C-alpha cells in the first residue's frame, strides 16, 4: 500500500528529474505499435535558432571541459568505449533529449509483421565528410567489421541480435555473408535478426551501430582516426588532435543539416580530473561537469548558481553480493543486507544530491522504470528486520562474520563516500565489518568478470533506453562475456528471453516487471541510487537542448547532440 507520504515522495522524485507520469507512459506507447512498425523522419527540429534579442558572437567557438581522459581513438565502430566525441559519426537513428529513438541518417524505418526483419532507407543527402555518398553498404560493412573476430572489438556483443552475429563473432561460422545485415541497394539496408526484437531501432540509435569509413580503414589501418586521416559522417569532423592535450572539431561541411548548426568549432582540452572546476572558474572552458565537492559552494553563490543545471544521467548504483561465497551464499544474509541500507540518507546526505533513492534497475522517465509499492517493500530499509533476517544463519545476531571486502572501481561523483556510508550502515545494523578496496578500473573489470569479488559496489550507466539493456546485458545468467555476478536464475532468464521477443509493449513491460521482482526477491542485486549530475555553462552559451519538461539535457550517456544546438552570444 502506498501511503500519502510515499506517494508524494515518488511524485516529487519524478518531477525533480523533469519527468511527468504521462510523459513516461506516452514514451512507452510511442516506442512501439502492435504489428508492423515503422517510423519516418519526423525529427523535431528544435535546432538552434538564436532567441530574439540574442546577439551572436562573431567567433562561434565552444570550449568544452568535460573530457578527463585522452580518447583511445575515434574508432567507435571498433571500440565504443574509446572515449571520444561520438557525434563525429552519425548512425541510422539517434536519441532525442527525451531519449526517444528517431531516424537520423535513415529517413524511413520499417519492420516486417513480427519485428524480426528491419529495413532502413537512407537519406539521399547523407554524405561522408569528403563528399562521398553514405550508403547502406557502409553500414553493412561496418557492422560486420565490428563482429569480425579479427577486429577484436571488445563490445561487439551489442550486435548479437543480428542473425548469426554471435556465431560469426565467436568464429563458429566464417561466412561473412551469413550475418543478418545486407544492403539491398545503395540506400536500403536490411537487418535480419535472430528473432522478433521490437527494440531494434533503439539499439540502432546506440553507438554500437555507428559506421566506419571503409576506404580510410583499409588505407590507414589503426591510424585511420588520426586527424589527418579520418573521414566521418557526423555533424562534426575531427580537425586537429594534439595527443594528451586537446582535440578540435569543426562543423562537417557535408553534413545534411549543417545549416541549422551555429557553432563553427569546438575545442576540447583534456583536463585532469584533479583540476576539478578550476578551468571553468578561470574561464578556460565554457562548460564543465560539477564535482560533488563544489556543488554547494556554486549553489550558494547568487551569480554562479544561475550557471548550474541539474540533469539526469540515466544510471543506477547498486550492490552485488556474490552468491557463490560465504556469507552471501545465504539468501537470508543477502536479504539482511538489502534491508540494512538507508537509500534516502545515501541519496540526500552522502551523495550530496548526486543520486535519488533507487528501488529498481531502471531510472525514472525511461521505459521499464518500476518504482511501485510492492517493489519498494521488497528491499525496504528496516534495521530490525535486517538483523532478524540473519536468524538461522551462522551469523545470527550479527556475529561471526568472515572477512568481507567491498570492491569498487576508482571513480568520481561521490562513489567512494557512498561506499563508505554503506560500510557504516552494514556495521551499524548488522555489525558486519567490511573493508573497502578501491581498484584501478582495468583490474576491477578483470576481477569483476572473473567473478572474483565478494561484495561489489558498482553502477550501470544505461547504454540505450530499453530494459533489454538493463536486464539482458547485465543480469542474463547465460551471458558468456562481461558478466558481473555469479547469480543466475532460470525463471529470470526465461522472463527476459520472453520479453526480448514480445511485441506488445504492455505485455513486454509486465514481463520485465516480473523479472525485476525475481531479481530483487533473490537479492541478485541491491539497488541503491539512481544517478543525477550537474553541469555548469557560462552565461554566453545559449540554445541548450531541453526535454519536453523544459529541463536542460546536456550530452550524457544516451543523448548526444548538445553541440548542434549551442550558440555563443556576444560577451
Amino acid at each position, binding site marked *: 500500500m502506498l501511503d500519502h507520504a510515499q506517494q508524494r515522495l515518488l511524485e516529487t522524485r519524478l518531477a525533480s528529474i523533469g519527468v511527468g507520469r504521462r510523459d513516461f507512459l506516452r514514451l512507452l506507447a510511442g516506442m512501439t505499435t502492435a504489428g508492423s512498425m515503422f517510423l519516418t523522419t519526423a525529427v523535431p527540429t528544435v535546432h538552434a535558432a538564436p532567441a530574439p534579442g540574442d546577439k551572436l558572437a562573431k567567433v562561434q567557438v565552444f570550449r568544452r571541459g568535460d573530457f578527463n581522459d585522452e580518447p583511445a581513438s575515434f574508432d567507435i565502430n571498433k571500440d565504443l568505449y574509446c572515449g571520444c566525441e561520438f557525434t563525429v559519426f552519425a548512425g541510422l537513428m539517434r536519441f532525442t533529449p527525451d531519449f526517444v529513438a528517431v531516424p537520423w541518417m535513415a529517413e524511413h524505418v520499417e519492420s516486417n509483421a513480427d519485428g524480426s526483419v528491419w529495413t532502413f532507407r537512407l537519406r539521399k543527402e547523407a554524405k561522408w565528410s569528403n563528399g562521398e555518398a553514405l550508403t547502406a553498404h557502409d553500414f553493412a560493412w561496418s557492422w560486420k567489421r565490428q563482429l569480425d573476430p579479427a577486429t577484436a572489438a571488445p563490445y561487439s556483443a551489442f550486435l548479437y541480435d543480428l542473425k548469426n552475429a554471435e556465431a560469426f563473432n565467436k568464429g563458429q561460422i566464417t561466412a561473412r555473408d551469413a550475418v543478418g545485415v545486407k544492403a539491398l541497394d545503395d540506400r536500403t539496408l536490411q537487418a535480419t535478426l535472430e528473432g522478433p526484437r521490437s527494440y531494434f531501432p533503439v539499439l540502432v540509435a546506440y553507438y554500437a551501430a555507428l559506421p566506419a569509413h571503409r576506404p580510410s580503414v583499409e588505407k590507414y589501418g589503426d591510424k585511420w582516426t588520426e586527424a589527418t586521416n579520418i573521414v566521418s559522417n557526423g555533424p562534426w569532423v575531427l580537425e586537429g588532435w594534439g595527443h594528451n592535450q586537446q582535440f578540435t572539431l569543426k562543423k562537417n561541411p557535408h553534413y545534411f543539416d549543417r545549416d541549422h548548426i551555429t557553432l563553427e568549432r569546438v575545442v576540447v582540452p583534456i583536463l585532469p580530473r584533479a583540476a576539478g572546476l578550476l578551468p571553468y572558474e578561470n574561464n578556460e572552458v565554457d562548460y564543465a561537469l560539477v564535482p560533488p565537492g563544489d556543488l*554547494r559552494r556554486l549553489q550558494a553563490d547568487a551569480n554562479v548558481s544561475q550557471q548550474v543545471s541539474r540533469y539526469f544521467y540515466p544510471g543506477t548504483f547498486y550492490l552485488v553480493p556474490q552468491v557463490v561465497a560465504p556469507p552471501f551464499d545465504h539468501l537470508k544474509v543477502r536479504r539482511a543486507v538489502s534491508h540494512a541500507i538507508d537509500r534516502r540518507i545515501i541519496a540526500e*546526505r*552522502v551523495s550530496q544530491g548526486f543520486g535519488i533513492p533507487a528501488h529498481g534497475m531502471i531510472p525514472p522517465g525511461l521505459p521499464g522504470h518500476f518504482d511501485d509499492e510492492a517493489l519498494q517493500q521488497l528491499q525496504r530499509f528496516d534495521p530490525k528486520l535486517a538483523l532478524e533476517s540473519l536468524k538461522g544463519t551462522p551469523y545470527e545476531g550479527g556475529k561471526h562474520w568472515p572477512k568481507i571486502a567491498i570492491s569498487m572501481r576508482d571513480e568520481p561523483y561521490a562513489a567512494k*563516500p557512498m561506499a*563508505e*556510508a554503506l*560500510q*557504516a550502515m552494514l556495521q551499524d545494523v548488522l555489525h558486519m565489518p567490511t573493508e573497502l*578496496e578501491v581498484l584501478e578500473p582495468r583490474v576491477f573489470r578483470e576481477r569483476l568478470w572473473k567473478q572474483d569479488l565478494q561484495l561489489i559496489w558498482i553502477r550501470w550507466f544505461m547504454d540505450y533506453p530499453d530494459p533489454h539493456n538493463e536486464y539482458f546485458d547485465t543480469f542474463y545468467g547465460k551471458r558468456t562475456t562481461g558478466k558481473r555476478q555469479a547469480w543466475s536464475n532460470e525463471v529470470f532468464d526465461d522472463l527476459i528471453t520472453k520479453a526480448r521477443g514480445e511485441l506488445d509493449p504492455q505485455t513486454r513491460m509486465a514481463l520485465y516487471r516480473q523479472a525485476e521482482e525475481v531479481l530483487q526477491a533473490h537479492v541478485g542485486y541491491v539497488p541503491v541510487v539512481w544517478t543525477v549530475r550537474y553541469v555548469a555553462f557560462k552565461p554566453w552559451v545559449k540554445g541548450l537542448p531541453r526535454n519536453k519538461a523544459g529541463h536542460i539535457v546536456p550530452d550524457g550517456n544516451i543523448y548526444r547532440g548538445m553541440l548542434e544546438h549551442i550558440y555563443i552570444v556576444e560577451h
Partner: protein
Amino acid sequence: MALMLRRGKKPSPEVSLWQDAWRRLRRNRLAVLGGLVIIALGLAAAFADAIAPYHYTKANFLHAYEFPNRDFPLGTDPLGRDMLSRLIYGARVSMLVGFVAQLMVVSIGVPIGALAGYYGGTVDLLIMRGVDVMYAFPRLLFVILIMAMLGAGLLNIFIAIGLTGWVNIARLTRAQILALKAQEFSEGARAVGASGPRVLCRHLLPNALSPIIVAVTFGIPEAIFTEAALSFIGVGINPPTASWGQMVGEYQQYILSYWYLCVFPSAAIAVTMLSFTFVGDGVRDALDPKLRD
C-alpha cells in the same frame, strides 16, 4: 677516534658518549620541541580510544561536511565522522608504520650490511651487487609495485617498506664495519682468539651504532610519508581505517568548498614530518664527534 677515546684512558671529565650526546640533544631546542610533539603523538596513538571524542567509524549523516564547531572541533567528513577523532586514530597508523617499518628495515639491513662488510670477498660482492640492483629502482615505485602484488593493508605496508628500505642501512652498516674492522681494537679482539661472530656483534656493531641511529631517525618520517603517499593514491590502507594520507587524497577535491577536510590531515603530516626531522637533525649533531665540546 672519538669512539676510541671511550675505550682508552679515561677522558676527563668522565662523560660517556651517550651521556654527552643526550646532554647536547637536550640543549637543541628544536629537537626537544620535535621530541615532545612525537611523544604527544605517540600517546595519542596509544590511547586513541580514551582521547578521541568519537569512534573513527562513527558516522553521523545529519552532520556531514560540518565546519569546525564546538561538537566537532575540526569539522566532519562527508559521512559526518568527526575529523579530530579520525586524525587521532590516523596517528596510530602513522606511528605504527614509522616505528614498525623502521624496525623491519633495521632488522633486514643491519645484518646484511654487517655480513658483507665483515666477511668481504665474494659474499660482499654478491650482496653489494644485489644492493646495487635494488638501488636502481625508484623507491616509491618499487613500494607501489609490492603493494599492488600484496594488496592494501597495514601489514603489507610494513613488508613493502621493509623490503625496499633496507638497502640504505645495509650500505651504511657495511661502510662502518669495513672501517672499524681495520682498526686496532678489532684486530686485538681477534688476536686474543674471539670468533668472527663475536667480534662482529660485541666489538664492531656497537661502535657502528651512531650512524645507524641517525639513519633510523630520518627513516621513520620517510616511512610515515611513504604510507601517506600510498594511501593518498589509494593503495595504502583501506577504509574505514583512518589514515592521514588517505584523508588528504580523498578530500583534496573539496579544497575550495570544504578546505578544513584536507588542510588538517595535511598539517598533521607536515608537523609529524617536521618533528621527526628536527629530532633527526638533533641526534645527528649530538652524535657527531666533530661537534663535541
